[in-house]
């Protein structure tokens, strides 16, 4: 009899534990309510809408997998997906490698660090629309300063925002400017690397590359991992910069030949310009699954991430 009651008791909470549980749940209740109403319930609704034909005015009509089938034949959708993948596969590594490189340079004990830090950070807190307007002017094919400067070196004018072959490069280039805050995140990580580890490597005769490769990079790998995850999600949701730089007065967007139409922009057009809520929900769910797979892949291949335990 007594032996039966022992496993039972393992799942029972003591009185203090129960009181702590109630107190804890009360404190986090805003989060639980928020999670339920602003996250979980909408996700379920979104899945439901993705199987319906819904224009908001009339109630949703169940159409099974038709939205998903139509997406497979939607050329514009595939184009938007392709454009977005290019941003993730090319833009993201370029962005993070640039920021990492800059952080290493800033960490080499240079003076005036605060000034550099400020300069690299400021673009990432300015309003996106205001900054994007500046970049439109810089990128202007005829009067833009970028082409003027390139012209000094004999480069023919480039249609940064008008040439389908250049527009994504232009956006990635601009993205470096917008994403300077990542430099500071890396720099903060680099400054936390304990000097005694680097000194120990030096005593062992490690050269600069070996120190970076075997000490510094492993020590900041959790931060690199974090920025990869956050930016994958960010690049899949790429919207405002692309929208502001390409949206016309008539409300169309996507640049020449839809070369800068990104996933979220197409989703926005379907949902809020054409009110195809069901179709857009199917897109949202495909995006959800893609981001999930991408995140799982990054987590699964995260063997290179080193978690240093402070003793």
């Amino acid at each position, binding site marked *: 009899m007594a032996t039966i009651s022992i496993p039972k008791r393992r799942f029972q909470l003591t009185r203090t534990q129960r009181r702590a549980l109630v107190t*804890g749940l009360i*404190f986090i209740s*805003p989060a639980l309510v928020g999670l339920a109403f602003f996250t979980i319930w909408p996700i379920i609704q979104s899945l439901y809408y993705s199987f319906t034909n819904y224009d908001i005015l009339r109630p949703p009509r169940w159409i099974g997998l038709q939205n998903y089938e139509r997406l497979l034949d939607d050329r514009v959708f595939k184009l938007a997906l392709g454009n977005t993948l290019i941003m993730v596969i090319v833009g993201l590594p370029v962005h993070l490698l640039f920021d990492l490189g800059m952080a290493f340079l800033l960490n080499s004990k240079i003076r005036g660090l605060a000034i550099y*830090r400020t300069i690299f950070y400021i673009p990432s807190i300015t309003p996106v629309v*205001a900054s994007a307007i500046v970049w439109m002017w810089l990128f202007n094919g005829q009067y833009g300063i970028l082409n003027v400067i390139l012209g000094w070196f004999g480069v023919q004018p480039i249609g940064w925002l008008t040439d389908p072959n250049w527009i994504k490069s232009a956006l990635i280039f601009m993205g470096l400017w917008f994403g300077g805050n990542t430099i500071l995140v890396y720099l903060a990580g680099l400054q936390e690397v304990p000097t005694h580890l680097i000194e120990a490597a030096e005593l062992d005769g490690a050269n600069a590359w070996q120190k970076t490769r075997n000490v510094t990079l492993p020590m900041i790998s959790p*931060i690199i991992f974090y920025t990869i995850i956050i930016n994958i999600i960010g690049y899949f949701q790429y919207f405002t910069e692309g929208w502001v730089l390409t949206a016309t007065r008539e409300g169309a967007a996507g640049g020449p030949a839809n070369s800068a139409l990104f996933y979220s922009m197409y989703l926005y057009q379907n949902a809020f310009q054409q009110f195809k809520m069901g179709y857009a929900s199917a897109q949202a769910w495909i995006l959800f699954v893609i981001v999930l797979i991408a995140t799982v892949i990054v987590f699964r291949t995260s063997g290179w991430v080193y978690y240093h335990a402070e003793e």
Partner: protein
Amino acid sequence: MATPQTIRTAVPAPATIDWRQNRVVIERIKTTVAYIICTVMALGFVFPLYWLVVTALKTDVEIFLVPPSILPMNPQWQNFYQATIYIDFWRYMFNTFAIAALSIIGTVMSCTIIAYGFARVRWPGRNIIFLIYLSTIMLPAQVTLIPLYITYRSLGWVGTILPLVVPSFFGNPFFVFLLRQFLMTIPHELTDAARIDGASEVGILRYVILPLIRPALATVALFTFVNVYRDYLGPLIYLQNQDQWTISLGLKMFQNMYGAQWQLMMAASTLAMLPTLILFFLTQKTFIRGIALTGLKE
């Protein structure tokens, strides 16, 4: 006779030292190269802002000069004034600040309470619940965008600022994480002592914890402000009445209507950037601490 020879062998002449072996020289070359690259890049980062202000001060003729003038020939300060008339600039500014203020109140209040529940109350299962909560950061906003729009629409909230403000009263996983990190550094002895003295959890939060986490709350408030101020998609979807527009929507309309008036657009953009820039220079330390905290330590 033998003495000079022994000296010569013992101390090699300085000229024979290979400079590549000299650590001081190498370090100096490295730092110089780092300086040069950092400075060039910094100039590149500053240039768009410089060009923004310079263009804002030119006339509508001078902006189209080829090659462009590096400084305005005759600074047109009235461009800034004109820009605020072409669009309803001050109204958009006021709207943006109103949304930001309400969002800051909501975020700071809710995130403090939630973070306290996760960090200072020891209840069974809190770590798992926290991980689940934190993982929602990874959810693309597009998934919840449409159902939320439909819900808000049925509540009659579309065309009001409520969809932009109300969610902030229910916490934000990112800021909760940030505050939780901060709360965990406060020694438990401090709160345990208050508990033994009979203080309630609310009392502990109010009188023991709150004074200690003010700097972290300032960071949360600042980041919330910047997020609201930069947001474009949210206002684009929910604010249909032009009277309620934020500055971002106003700037985009400016571009649609007076697209060739680059100097005025630049003037408006400069003015729109000023609040975040001023705020940054006033509160640099708070920003920098926030960045260090976001660099995930655990």
